[in-house]
Protein backbone atom coordinates (compact mmCIF):
# COMPACT_ATOMS: atom_id res chain seq x y z
CA UNK A 1 0.00 0.00 0.00
CA UNK A 2 2.72 2.36 1.04
CA UNK A 3 4.95 1.33 -1.79
CA UNK A 4 2.14 1.91 -4.24
CA UNK A 5 1.57 5.41 -2.85
CA UNK A 6 5.28 6.11 -2.97
CA UNK A 7 5.43 4.95 -6.52
CA UNK A 8 2.53 7.25 -7.38
CA UNK A 9 4.29 10.18 -5.75
CA UNK A 10 7.41 9.53 -7.67
CA UNK A 11 5.62 9.31 -10.96
CA UNK A 12 3.67 12.46 -10.17
CA UNK A 13 6.81 14.40 -9.35
CA UNK A 14 8.27 13.31 -12.64
CA UNK A 15 5.07 14.40 -14.33
CA UNK A 16 5.35 17.83 -12.75
CA UNK A 17 9.03 18.10 -13.60
CA UNK A 18 8.13 17.62 -17.25
CA UNK A 19 10.10 14.44 -17.36
CA UNK A 20 8.79 11.95 -19.83
CA UNK A 21 6.21 10.08 -17.84
CA UNK A 22 4.14 7.25 -19.09
CA UNK A 23 0.94 9.19 -18.89
CA UNK A 24 2.36 12.19 -20.73
CA UNK A 25 3.79 10.09 -23.48
CA UNK A 26 0.51 8.27 -23.84
CA UNK A 27 -1.38 11.54 -24.00
CA UNK A 28 0.77 12.67 -26.87
CA UNK A 29 -0.23 9.62 -28.77
CA UNK A 30 -3.89 10.62 -28.61
CA UNK A 31 -5.47 12.06 -31.73
CA UNK A 32 -4.68 15.72 -32.11
CA UNK A 33 -7.79 17.40 -33.45
CA UNK A 34 -7.58 20.88 -34.89
CA UNK A 35 -10.11 23.50 -35.83
CA UNK A 36 -11.48 23.11 -39.32
CA UNK A 37 -10.89 25.54 -42.13
CA UNK A 38 -14.24 27.23 -41.66
CA UNK A 39 -13.42 28.01 -38.07
CA UNK A 40 -9.97 29.28 -39.02
CA UNK A 41 -11.46 31.52 -41.68
CA UNK A 42 -14.00 32.90 -39.26
CA UNK A 43 -11.38 33.75 -36.67
CA UNK A 44 -9.01 35.29 -39.23
CA UNK A 45 -11.89 37.26 -40.68
CA UNK A 46 -12.72 38.58 -37.24
CA UNK A 47 -9.12 39.63 -36.71
CA UNK A 48 -8.87 41.36 -40.06
CA UNK A 49 -12.23 43.05 -39.70
CA UNK A 50 -11.16 44.38 -36.32
CA UNK A 51 -8.33 46.25 -37.98
CA UNK A 52 -10.09 47.31 -41.18
CA UNK A 53 -13.80 47.53 -40.52
CA UNK A 54 -14.65 49.16 -43.83
CA UNK A 55 -12.90 46.51 -45.93
CA UNK A 56 -14.75 43.56 -44.60
CA UNK A 57 -17.92 45.10 -43.38
CA UNK A 58 -18.63 47.01 -46.55
CA UNK A 59 -20.17 44.16 -48.50
CA UNK A 60 -22.46 43.37 -45.64
CA UNK A 61 -23.66 46.87 -45.09
CA UNK A 62 -24.51 47.45 -48.75
CA UNK A 63 -27.84 45.63 -48.82
CA UNK A 64 -28.71 47.13 -45.50
CA UNK A 65 -28.12 50.61 -46.90
CA UNK A 66 -30.21 49.74 -49.95
CA UNK A 67 -33.02 48.59 -47.79
CA UNK A 68 -32.79 51.64 -45.58
CA UNK A 69 -33.00 53.87 -48.62
CA UNK A 70 -35.91 52.14 -50.29
CA UNK A 71 -38.08 51.12 -47.40
CA UNK A 72 -39.45 54.63 -46.75
CA UNK A 73 -40.07 55.06 -50.46
CA UNK A 74 -41.96 51.82 -50.66
CA UNK A 75 -43.91 52.73 -47.58
CA UNK A 76 -44.85 56.13 -48.96
CA UNK A 77 -45.90 54.63 -52.28
CA UNK A 78 -48.03 52.04 -50.57
CA UNK A 79 -49.65 54.73 -48.47
CA UNK A 80 -50.42 56.84 -51.51
CA UNK A 81 -51.95 53.91 -53.33
CA UNK A 82 -54.02 53.05 -50.30
CA UNK A 83 -55.25 56.62 -49.90
CA UNK A 84 -56.03 56.89 -53.60
CA UNK A 85 -58.04 53.71 -53.43
CA UNK A 86 -60.08 54.98 -50.55
CA UNK A 87 -60.62 58.33 -52.26
CA UNK A 88 -61.71 56.62 -55.43
CA UNK A 89 -64.18 54.47 -53.58
CA UNK A 90 -65.60 57.44 -51.71
CA UNK A 91 -65.82 59.51 -54.86
CA UNK A 92 -67.57 56.71 -56.70
CA UNK A 93 -70.09 56.31 -53.94
CA UNK A 94 -70.64 60.06 -53.76
CA UNK A 95 -71.06 60.34 -57.50
CA UNK A 96 -73.58 57.59 -57.65
CA UNK A 97 -75.46 59.20 -54.81
CA UNK A 98 -75.42 62.58 -56.50
CA UNK A 99 -76.49 61.00 -59.77
CA UNK A 100 -79.36 59.44 -58.00
CA UNK A 101 -80.33 62.73 -56.42
CA UNK A 102 -79.81 64.88 -59.46
CA UNK A 103 -81.78 62.71 -61.81
CA UNK A 104 -84.80 64.46 -63.38
CA UNK A 105 -86.64 65.25 -60.24
CA UNK A 106 -90.18 65.16 -61.40
CA UNK A 107 -92.70 62.53 -60.85
CA UNK A 108 -93.30 62.31 -64.51
CA UNK A 109 -92.42 59.74 -67.04
CA UNK A 110 -90.28 61.22 -69.71
CA UNK A 111 -90.90 59.65 -73.03
CA UNK A 112 -88.62 60.54 -75.83
CA UNK A 113 -89.63 59.54 -79.23
CA UNK A 114 -86.69 58.87 -81.42
CA UNK A 115 -87.74 57.19 -84.57
CA UNK A 116 -91.43 57.42 -85.08
CA UNK A 117 -92.97 60.62 -86.35
CA UNK A 118 -95.90 61.95 -84.46
CA UNK A 119 -99.06 60.12 -85.41
CA UNK A 120 -102.20 61.92 -86.35
CA UNK A 121 -104.31 63.15 -83.48
CA UNK A 122 -105.54 60.31 -81.47
CA UNK A 123 -108.88 59.10 -82.53
CA UNK A 124 -111.40 58.78 -79.81
CA UNK A 125 -110.47 55.68 -78.00
CA UNK A 126 -112.94 52.96 -77.73
CA UNK A 127 -113.33 51.82 -74.23
CA UNK A 128 -115.65 49.40 -72.61
CA UNK A 129 -118.64 50.87 -70.96
CA UNK A 130 -118.14 51.64 -67.34
CA UNK A 131 -120.93 51.61 -64.91
CA UNK A 132 -123.36 54.30 -65.85
CA UNK A 133 -123.04 56.16 -62.65
CA UNK A 134 -119.35 56.50 -63.04
CA UNK A 135 -119.08 57.05 -66.69
CA UNK A 136 -119.27 60.75 -67.03
CA UNK A 137 -117.00 61.82 -64.27
CA UNK A 138 -114.60 59.03 -64.86
CA UNK A 139 -114.16 59.84 -68.44
CA UNK A 140 -113.87 63.46 -67.64
CA UNK A 141 -110.94 62.80 -65.46
CA UNK A 142 -109.57 60.27 -67.78
CA UNK A 143 -109.70 62.64 -70.65
CA UNK A 144 -107.83 65.21 -68.66
CA UNK A 145 -104.91 62.96 -68.19
CA UNK A 146 -105.11 61.49 -71.63
CA UNK A 147 -104.88 64.85 -73.25
CA UNK A 148 -101.81 65.60 -71.35
CA UNK A 149 -100.34 62.33 -72.35
CA UNK A 150 -101.15 62.81 -75.96
CA UNK A 151 -99.69 66.26 -75.94
CA UNK A 152 -96.46 65.02 -74.54
CA UNK A 153 -96.18 61.68 -76.23
CA UNK A 154 -98.30 61.57 -79.31
CA UNK A 155 -97.75 57.92 -79.77
CA UNK A 156 -100.67 55.62 -80.17
CA UNK A 157 -101.47 53.80 -77.05
CA UNK A 158 -100.70 50.50 -78.66
CA UNK A 159 -97.31 51.69 -79.73
CA UNK A 160 -96.43 52.50 -76.17
CA UNK A 161 -95.64 48.88 -75.64
CA UNK A 162 -92.00 48.49 -76.49
CA UNK A 163 -92.50 45.14 -78.09
CA UNK A 164 -95.34 46.27 -80.26
CA UNK A 165 -93.80 49.21 -82.03
CA UNK A 166 -90.30 50.23 -83.02
CA UNK A 167 -90.23 53.00 -80.56
CA UNK A 168 -87.41 53.37 -78.20
CA UNK A 169 -88.41 54.98 -75.01
CA UNK A 170 -86.43 56.18 -72.24
CA UNK A 171 -88.35 56.12 -69.07
CA UNK A 172 -87.00 57.97 -66.17
CA UNK A 173 -88.86 58.39 -63.03
CA UNK A 174 -88.02 60.18 -59.90
CA UNK A 175 -90.93 60.52 -57.62
CA UNK A 176 -89.79 60.34 -54.09
CA UNK A 177 -88.45 63.82 -53.72
CA UNK A 178 -91.23 65.37 -55.67
CA UNK A 179 -93.77 63.70 -53.56
CA UNK A 180 -92.10 65.03 -50.50
CA UNK A 181 -92.10 68.54 -51.81
CA UNK A 182 -95.48 68.67 -53.39
CA UNK A 183 -98.04 69.96 -51.03
CA UNK A 184 -101.15 68.02 -50.65
CA UNK A 185 -103.13 71.10 -51.40
CA UNK A 186 -101.79 71.14 -54.92
CA UNK A 187 -103.23 67.78 -55.58
CA UNK A 188 -106.42 68.81 -54.01
CA UNK A 189 -106.51 71.94 -56.08
CA UNK A 190 -105.93 70.15 -59.28
CA UNK A 191 -108.61 67.73 -58.45
CA UNK A 192 -111.01 70.45 -57.62
CA UNK A 193 -110.30 72.03 -60.95
CA UNK A 194 -111.14 68.94 -62.88
CA UNK A 195 -114.28 68.37 -60.95
CA UNK A 196 -115.69 71.65 -59.87
CA UNK A 197 -118.93 70.19 -58.59
CA UNK A 198 -117.34 67.39 -56.74
CA UNK A 199 -117.54 66.66 -53.11
CA UNK A 200 -115.19 68.31 -50.67
CA UNK A 201 -111.56 68.36 -51.63
CA UNK A 202 -109.89 65.02 -51.79
CA UNK A 203 -108.32 63.73 -48.70
CA UNK A 204 -104.83 64.76 -48.10
CA UNK A 205 -102.79 61.65 -48.00
CA UNK A 206 -101.66 60.60 -44.55
CA UNK A 207 -98.34 62.02 -43.65
CA UNK A 208 -97.04 58.66 -42.61
CA UNK A 209 -97.99 57.14 -45.87
CA UNK A 210 -96.28 59.90 -47.72
CA UNK A 211 -93.19 59.45 -45.66
CA UNK A 212 -93.16 55.76 -46.26
CA UNK A 213 -93.67 56.28 -49.92
CA UNK A 214 -90.86 58.75 -50.05
CA UNK A 215 -88.57 56.23 -48.47
CA UNK A 216 -89.19 53.86 -51.27
CA UNK A 217 -86.09 53.06 -53.11
CA UNK A 218 -85.68 55.05 -56.26
CA UNK A 219 -84.68 52.03 -58.25
CA UNK A 220 -87.74 50.20 -57.16
CA UNK A 221 -89.80 53.15 -58.18
CA UNK A 222 -88.24 53.20 -61.57
CA UNK A 223 -89.01 49.58 -62.07
CA UNK A 224 -92.50 50.01 -60.83
CA UNK A 225 -93.14 52.97 -62.99
CA UNK A 226 -91.57 51.45 -66.02
CA UNK A 227 -93.54 48.26 -65.69
CA UNK A 228 -96.73 49.44 -64.15
CA UNK A 229 -97.26 52.85 -65.57
CA UNK A 230 -97.04 51.86 -69.15
CA UNK A 231 -99.15 48.82 -68.62
CA UNK A 232 -101.83 50.78 -66.89
CA UNK A 233 -101.79 53.56 -69.37
CA UNK A 234 -102.09 51.07 -72.10
CA UNK A 235 -104.81 49.15 -70.39
CA UNK A 236 -106.70 52.24 -69.68
CA UNK A 237 -106.43 53.48 -73.19
CA UNK A 238 -107.42 50.24 -74.76
CA UNK A 239 -109.75 48.71 -72.28
CA UNK A 240 -111.50 51.63 -70.73
CA UNK A 241 -111.77 53.49 -73.96
CA UNK A 242 -113.36 50.57 -75.63
CA UNK A 243 -115.94 50.45 -72.93
CA UNK A 244 -116.66 54.09 -73.14
CA UNK A 245 -117.39 53.87 -76.80
CA UNK A 246 -119.66 56.52 -78.13
CA UNK A 247 -120.05 58.22 -74.81
CA UNK A 248 -116.68 59.75 -75.17
CA UNK A 249 -117.78 62.44 -77.46
CA UNK A 250 -120.43 63.79 -75.21
CA UNK A 251 -118.15 63.61 -72.29
CA UNK A 252 -115.63 65.60 -74.17
CA UNK A 253 -118.20 68.25 -74.62
CA UNK A 254 -118.93 68.24 -70.94
CA UNK A 255 -115.37 68.85 -70.01
CA UNK A 256 -114.09 71.80 -71.93
CA UNK A 257 -110.69 73.01 -71.08
CA UNK A 258 -109.87 70.08 -68.96
CA UNK A 259 -106.47 69.99 -70.48
CA UNK A 260 -105.86 73.41 -69.16
CA UNK A 261 -107.43 72.54 -65.87
CA UNK A 262 -105.51 69.39 -65.53
CA UNK A 263 -102.37 69.46 -63.51
CA UNK A 264 -100.42 69.83 -66.66
CA UNK A 265 -98.42 72.48 -64.98
CA UNK A 266 -96.10 69.74 -64.07
CA UNK A 267 -95.67 68.80 -67.67
CA UNK A 268 -92.44 70.09 -69.00
CA UNK A 269 -91.12 69.43 -72.45
CA UNK A 270 -91.94 65.94 -73.36
CA UNK A 271 -92.84 64.92 -69.90
CA UNK A 272 -96.19 63.49 -69.17
CA UNK A 273 -97.97 64.09 -65.98
CA UNK A 274 -101.25 62.54 -65.18
CA UNK A 275 -103.50 63.33 -62.31
CA UNK A 276 -102.83 59.92 -61.05
CA UNK A 277 -99.15 60.64 -60.98
CA UNK A 278 -99.85 63.60 -58.86
CA UNK A 279 -101.31 61.32 -56.26
CA UNK A 280 -99.14 60.18 -53.42
CA UNK A 281 -97.15 57.18 -54.22
CA UNK A 282 -98.95 55.11 -51.71
CA UNK A 283 -101.83 55.10 -54.04
CA UNK A 284 -99.59 53.89 -56.78
CA UNK A 285 -98.87 50.76 -54.94
CA UNK A 286 -102.32 49.56 -55.77
CA UNK A 287 -102.22 46.97 -58.50
CA UNK A 288 -104.15 47.66 -61.60
CA UNK A 289 -106.26 44.58 -61.90
CA UNK A 290 -108.47 44.17 -58.94
CA UNK A 291 -111.85 42.98 -58.00
CA UNK A 292 -114.63 44.56 -59.87
CA UNK A 293 -116.66 47.22 -58.27
CA UNK A 294 -119.94 45.95 -57.02
CA UNK A 295 -122.76 47.51 -58.92
CA UNK A 296 -124.72 48.25 -55.83
CA UNK A 297 -121.75 50.02 -54.35
CA UNK A 298 -121.22 52.25 -57.28
CA UNK A 299 -120.69 55.73 -55.99
CA UNK A 300 -122.49 58.74 -57.16
CA UNK A 301 -121.36 60.61 -60.21
CA UNK A 302 -119.31 63.08 -58.26
CA UNK A 303 -117.84 60.37 -56.10
CA UNK A 304 -117.05 58.35 -59.09
CA UNK A 305 -115.24 61.22 -60.64
CA UNK A 306 -113.19 61.67 -57.55
CA UNK A 307 -112.51 58.03 -57.24
CA UNK A 308 -111.67 57.75 -60.84
CA UNK A 309 -109.18 60.51 -60.61
CA UNK A 310 -107.79 59.22 -57.42
CA UNK A 311 -107.70 55.67 -58.57
CA UNK A 312 -106.10 56.30 -61.85
CA UNK A 313 -103.80 53.33 -61.76
CA UNK A 314 -101.03 54.86 -63.71
CA UNK A 315 -98.51 53.73 -61.23
CA UNK A 316 -99.99 50.66 -59.77
CA UNK A 317 -97.57 48.26 -58.31
CA UNK A 318 -97.09 45.56 -55.85
CA UNK A 319 -95.10 46.20 -52.81
CA UNK A 320 -91.79 44.52 -52.72
CA UNK A 321 -91.09 41.49 -50.60
CA UNK A 322 -94.41 39.83 -50.99
CA UNK A 323 -96.38 42.30 -48.98
CA UNK A 324 -100.11 42.44 -49.22
CA UNK A 325 -101.14 43.66 -52.57
CA UNK A 326 -103.02 46.88 -52.35
CA UNK A 327 -106.40 46.46 -53.90
CA UNK A 328 -108.19 48.94 -56.07
CA UNK A 329 -110.08 51.24 -53.86
CA UNK A 330 -113.30 51.80 -55.61
CA UNK A 331 -115.21 51.91 -52.49
CA UNK A 332 -117.49 54.26 -50.75
CA UNK A 333 -115.51 53.89 -47.61
CA UNK A 334 -113.38 56.95 -47.07
CA UNK A 335 -110.63 54.75 -45.70
CA UNK A 336 -110.32 52.82 -48.90
CA UNK A 337 -107.59 55.09 -50.06
CA UNK A 338 -105.39 54.37 -47.11
CA UNK A 339 -102.86 51.74 -46.47
CA UNK A 340 -104.44 48.67 -44.98
CA UNK A 341 -102.70 49.35 -41.70
CA UNK A 342 -104.03 52.87 -41.54
CA UNK A 343 -107.43 51.72 -42.51
CA UNK A 344 -107.42 49.19 -39.68
CA UNK A 345 -106.19 51.84 -37.33
CA UNK A 346 -109.12 54.00 -38.26
CA UNK A 347 -111.43 51.08 -37.68
CA UNK A 348 -110.00 50.69 -34.23
CA UNK A 349 -110.51 54.38 -33.64
CA UNK A 350 -114.13 54.01 -34.62
CA UNK A 351 -114.50 51.20 -32.16
CA UNK A 352 -112.99 53.26 -29.45
CA UNK A 353 -115.33 56.09 -30.24
CA UNK A 354 -118.27 53.71 -30.02
CA UNK A 355 -118.98 53.99 -33.72
CA UNK A 356 -119.35 50.27 -33.94
CA UNK A 357 -121.71 50.14 -36.88
CA UNK A 358 -119.49 52.34 -38.91
CA UNK A 359 -116.49 50.27 -37.90
CA UNK A 360 -118.23 47.06 -38.89
CA UNK A 361 -119.14 48.49 -42.27
CA UNK A 362 -115.65 49.70 -42.81
CA UNK A 363 -114.23 46.34 -41.80
CA UNK A 364 -116.55 44.56 -44.18
CA UNK A 365 -115.42 46.86 -46.91
CA UNK A 366 -111.85 46.20 -45.97
CA UNK A 367 -112.41 42.46 -46.22
CA UNK A 368 -113.83 42.85 -49.67
CA UNK A 369 -110.97 44.91 -50.93
CA UNK A 370 -108.23 43.03 -49.16
CA UNK A 371 -109.48 39.47 -49.04
CA UNK A 372 -106.01 38.09 -48.59
CA UNK A 373 -105.03 40.43 -45.83
CA UNK A 374 -104.48 38.72 -42.53
CA UNK A 375 -106.47 40.70 -40.05
CA UNK A 376 -105.11 41.25 -36.58
CA UNK A 377 -106.64 39.20 -33.84
CA UNK A 378 -108.64 42.02 -32.34
CA UNK A 379 -110.40 42.69 -35.63
CA UNK A 380 -110.57 39.20 -37.03
CA UNK A 381 -113.19 38.01 -34.63
CA UNK A 382 -115.06 41.26 -34.49
CA UNK A 383 -118.76 40.72 -34.95
Amino acid at each position, binding site marked *: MTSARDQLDREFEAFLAEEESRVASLYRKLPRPEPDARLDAAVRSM*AHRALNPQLVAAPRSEPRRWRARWLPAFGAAAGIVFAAGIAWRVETARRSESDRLSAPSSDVISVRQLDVPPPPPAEPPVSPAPPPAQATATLQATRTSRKAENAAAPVPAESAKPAAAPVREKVTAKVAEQEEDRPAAAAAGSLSKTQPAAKPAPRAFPVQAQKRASEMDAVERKQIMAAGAWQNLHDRDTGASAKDGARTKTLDDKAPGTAAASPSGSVAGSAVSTPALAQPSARREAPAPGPAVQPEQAPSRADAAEERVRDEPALSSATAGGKIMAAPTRSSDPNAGLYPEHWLANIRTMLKENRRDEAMRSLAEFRKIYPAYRLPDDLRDLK
Partner: protein
Amino acid sequence: MGADKTDEELMLAYAQGDVRAFDALYERQRGMLYRFILRSVSDRATADELYQETWSRLIASRTRYRVEARFSTWLLQIAHNLIVDSFRRARPQAGAEETETVMRELDAPESDRPEQVLSEFEQRRRLQVALEGLPSEQREAFLLRVESGLGLEEIAAVTGAGHETVKSRLRYAFAKIREKFAE
Protein backbone atom coordinates in the same frame (compact mmCIF):
# COMPACT_ATOMS: atom_id res chain seq x y z
CA MET B 1 6.66 36.06 -40.90
CA GLY B 2 7.16 36.22 -37.19
CA ALA B 3 9.05 32.97 -36.87
CA ASP B 4 11.67 34.70 -34.83
CA LYS B 5 9.26 36.56 -32.64
CA THR B 6 7.72 35.41 -29.43
CA ASP B 7 3.98 35.07 -28.96
CA GLU B 8 3.92 38.22 -26.89
CA GLU B 9 5.70 40.25 -29.57
CA LEU B 10 3.31 39.01 -32.21
CA MET B 11 0.35 39.95 -30.06
CA LEU B 12 1.73 43.42 -29.54
CA ALA B 13 2.33 43.76 -33.27
CA TYR B 14 -1.26 42.75 -33.97
CA ALA B 15 -2.50 45.25 -31.44
CA GLN B 16 -0.59 47.86 -33.45
CA GLY B 17 -2.43 46.84 -36.61
CA ASP B 18 -0.27 44.08 -38.07
CA VAL B 19 -2.63 41.52 -39.44
CA ARG B 20 0.13 39.10 -40.48
CA ALA B 21 1.36 39.00 -36.88
CA PHE B 22 -2.03 37.72 -35.86
CA ASP B 23 -1.95 35.06 -38.57
CA ALA B 24 1.42 33.80 -37.29
CA LEU B 25 0.26 33.87 -33.71
CA TYR B 26 -2.95 32.09 -34.60
CA GLU B 27 -1.07 29.39 -36.45
CA ARG B 28 1.00 28.66 -33.34
CA GLN B 29 -1.86 28.54 -30.87
CA ARG B 30 -4.78 27.15 -32.75
CA GLY B 31 -4.15 23.43 -32.21
CA MET B 32 -3.27 23.68 -28.54
CA LEU B 33 -6.19 25.93 -27.76
CA TYR B 34 -8.65 23.86 -29.72
CA ARG B 35 -7.64 20.57 -28.10
CA PHE B 36 -7.68 22.11 -24.68
CA ILE B 37 -11.22 23.33 -25.23
CA LEU B 38 -12.40 20.19 -26.99
CA ARG B 39 -11.10 17.86 -24.29
CA SER B 40 -12.47 20.11 -21.61
CA VAL B 41 -16.03 20.15 -22.90
CA SER B 42 -16.08 16.86 -24.85
CA ASP B 43 -18.51 18.32 -27.34
CA ARG B 44 -17.41 19.40 -30.77
CA ALA B 45 -20.07 22.00 -31.36
CA THR B 46 -19.54 23.58 -27.96
CA ALA B 47 -15.81 23.45 -28.49
CA ASP B 48 -16.11 25.25 -31.82
CA GLU B 49 -18.29 27.90 -30.26
CA LEU B 50 -15.98 28.43 -27.32
CA TYR B 51 -12.92 28.41 -29.54
CA GLN B 52 -14.31 31.17 -31.75
CA GLU B 53 -15.51 33.12 -28.76
CA THR B 54 -12.04 32.88 -27.16
CA TRP B 55 -10.39 34.43 -30.19
CA SER B 56 -13.13 36.99 -30.48
CA ARG B 57 -12.49 38.19 -26.94
CA LEU B 58 -8.78 38.21 -27.53
CA ILE B 59 -9.24 40.37 -30.62
CA ALA B 60 -11.60 42.70 -28.85
CA SER B 61 -9.15 43.25 -25.97
CA ARG B 62 -6.00 43.43 -28.11
CA THR B 63 -5.32 47.05 -27.23
CA ARG B 64 -5.38 46.28 -23.50
CA TYR B 65 -2.83 43.46 -23.80
CA ARG B 66 0.22 43.91 -21.59
CA VAL B 67 3.14 41.53 -21.44
CA GLU B 68 2.77 40.45 -17.84
CA ALA B 69 2.70 36.72 -18.47
CA ARG B 70 3.06 34.29 -21.28
CA PHE B 71 0.66 34.88 -24.13
CA SER B 72 -0.58 31.30 -23.94
CA THR B 73 -1.47 31.87 -20.28
CA TRP B 74 -3.63 34.83 -21.21
CA LEU B 75 -5.21 32.95 -24.08
CA LEU B 76 -5.95 29.90 -21.97
CA GLN B 77 -7.27 32.10 -19.20
CA ILE B 78 -9.86 33.47 -21.59
CA ALA B 79 -10.72 29.96 -22.72
CA HIS B 80 -10.88 28.72 -19.15
CA ASN B 81 -13.38 31.40 -18.19
CA LEU B 82 -15.55 30.54 -21.13
CA ILE B 83 -15.38 26.85 -20.32
CA VAL B 84 -16.38 27.48 -16.74
CA ASP B 85 -19.30 29.60 -17.87
CA SER B 86 -20.28 26.83 -20.24
CA PHE B 87 -20.21 24.27 -17.44
CA ARG B 88 -22.28 26.52 -15.24
CA ARG B 89 -24.87 26.87 -17.95
CA ALA B 90 -24.83 23.17 -18.80
CA ARG B 91 -24.79 21.40 -15.48
CA PRO B 92 -23.91 21.93 -11.86
CA GLN B 93 -20.25 21.99 -11.14
CA ALA B 94 -18.72 18.96 -9.47
CA GLY B 95 -19.09 19.40 -5.77
CA ALA B 96 -17.46 18.05 -2.67
CA GLU B 97 -19.25 14.77 -2.97
CA GLU B 98 -17.72 14.03 -6.33
CA THR B 99 -14.30 14.96 -5.03
CA GLU B 100 -14.77 12.70 -2.03
CA THR B 101 -15.70 9.82 -4.31
CA VAL B 102 -12.49 10.26 -6.22
CA MET B 103 -10.53 10.34 -2.97
CA ARG B 104 -12.09 7.08 -1.81
CA GLU B 105 -11.26 5.46 -5.08
CA LEU B 106 -7.68 6.63 -4.78
CA ASP B 107 -7.44 5.24 -1.26
CA ALA B 108 -8.78 1.87 -2.26
CA PRO B 109 -6.21 -0.90 -2.62
CA GLU B 110 -5.01 -1.44 -6.09
CA SER B 111 -5.66 -4.63 -7.84
CA ASP B 112 -3.23 -7.41 -6.99
CA ARG B 113 -3.31 -8.58 -10.53
CA PRO B 114 -0.30 -7.72 -12.62
CA GLU B 115 -0.82 -4.97 -15.17
CA GLN B 116 -1.95 -6.38 -18.34
CA VAL B 117 -0.08 -5.48 -21.35
CA LEU B 118 -2.57 -3.56 -23.38
CA SER B 119 -2.29 -2.56 -26.88
CA GLU B 120 -1.45 1.04 -27.52
CA PHE B 121 -4.90 1.59 -28.96
CA GLU B 122 -6.52 0.28 -25.85
CA GLN B 123 -4.30 2.48 -23.70
CA ARG B 124 -5.28 5.57 -25.64
CA ARG B 125 -8.90 4.64 -25.35
CA ARG B 126 -8.55 4.21 -21.63
CA LEU B 127 -6.79 7.54 -21.36
CA GLN B 128 -9.58 9.17 -23.24
CA VAL B 129 -12.15 7.59 -20.97
CA ALA B 130 -10.16 8.55 -17.93
CA LEU B 131 -9.95 12.15 -19.03
CA GLU B 132 -13.65 12.33 -19.65
CA GLY B 133 -14.31 10.86 -16.23
CA LEU B 134 -12.25 13.44 -14.38
CA PRO B 135 -13.83 16.33 -12.55
CA SER B 136 -13.61 19.45 -14.67
CA GLU B 137 -11.08 21.24 -12.43
CA GLN B 138 -8.77 18.22 -12.40
CA ARG B 139 -9.15 17.62 -16.09
CA GLU B 140 -8.46 21.24 -16.88
CA ALA B 141 -5.37 21.32 -14.71
CA PHE B 142 -4.14 18.11 -16.28
CA LEU B 143 -4.73 19.44 -19.79
CA LEU B 144 -3.05 22.73 -19.03
CA ARG B 145 -0.09 20.77 -17.81
CA VAL B 146 0.11 18.15 -20.52
CA GLU B 147 -1.40 19.89 -23.54
CA SER B 148 -0.25 23.47 -22.95
CA GLY B 149 2.89 22.71 -21.00
CA LEU B 150 2.05 25.18 -18.23
CA GLY B 151 3.68 24.94 -14.83
CA LEU B 152 1.89 25.07 -11.52
CA GLU B 153 2.14 28.83 -11.24
CA GLU B 154 0.79 29.36 -14.72
CA ILE B 155 -2.02 26.90 -14.21
CA ALA B 156 -2.84 28.74 -11.00
CA ALA B 157 -2.87 32.01 -12.93
CA VAL B 158 -5.10 30.62 -15.62
CA THR B 159 -7.57 28.95 -13.35
CA GLY B 160 -7.45 31.49 -10.56
CA ALA B 161 -6.77 28.81 -7.99
CA GLY B 162 -3.98 28.60 -5.48
CA HIS B 163 -0.72 26.86 -6.07
CA GLU B 164 -1.41 24.00 -3.68
CA THR B 165 -4.91 23.61 -5.01
CA VAL B 166 -3.60 23.22 -8.50
CA LYS B 167 -1.04 20.71 -7.33
CA SER B 168 -3.69 18.72 -5.51
CA ARG B 169 -5.98 18.70 -8.56
CA LEU B 170 -3.13 17.52 -10.72
CA ARG B 171 -2.25 14.78 -8.29
CA TYR B 172 -5.77 13.48 -8.15
CA ALA B 173 -6.08 13.61 -11.93
CA PHE B 174 -2.81 11.83 -12.41
CA ALA B 175 -3.70 9.16 -9.88
CA LYS B 176 -7.07 8.41 -11.47
CA ILE B 177 -5.64 8.16 -14.94
CA ARG B 178 -2.93 5.87 -13.70
CA GLU B 179 -5.47 3.72 -11.97
CA LYS B 180 -7.35 3.32 -15.21
CA PHE B 181 -4.28 1.84 -16.76
CA ALA B 182 -3.87 -0.49 -13.83
CA GLU B 183 -7.32 -2.04 -14.26
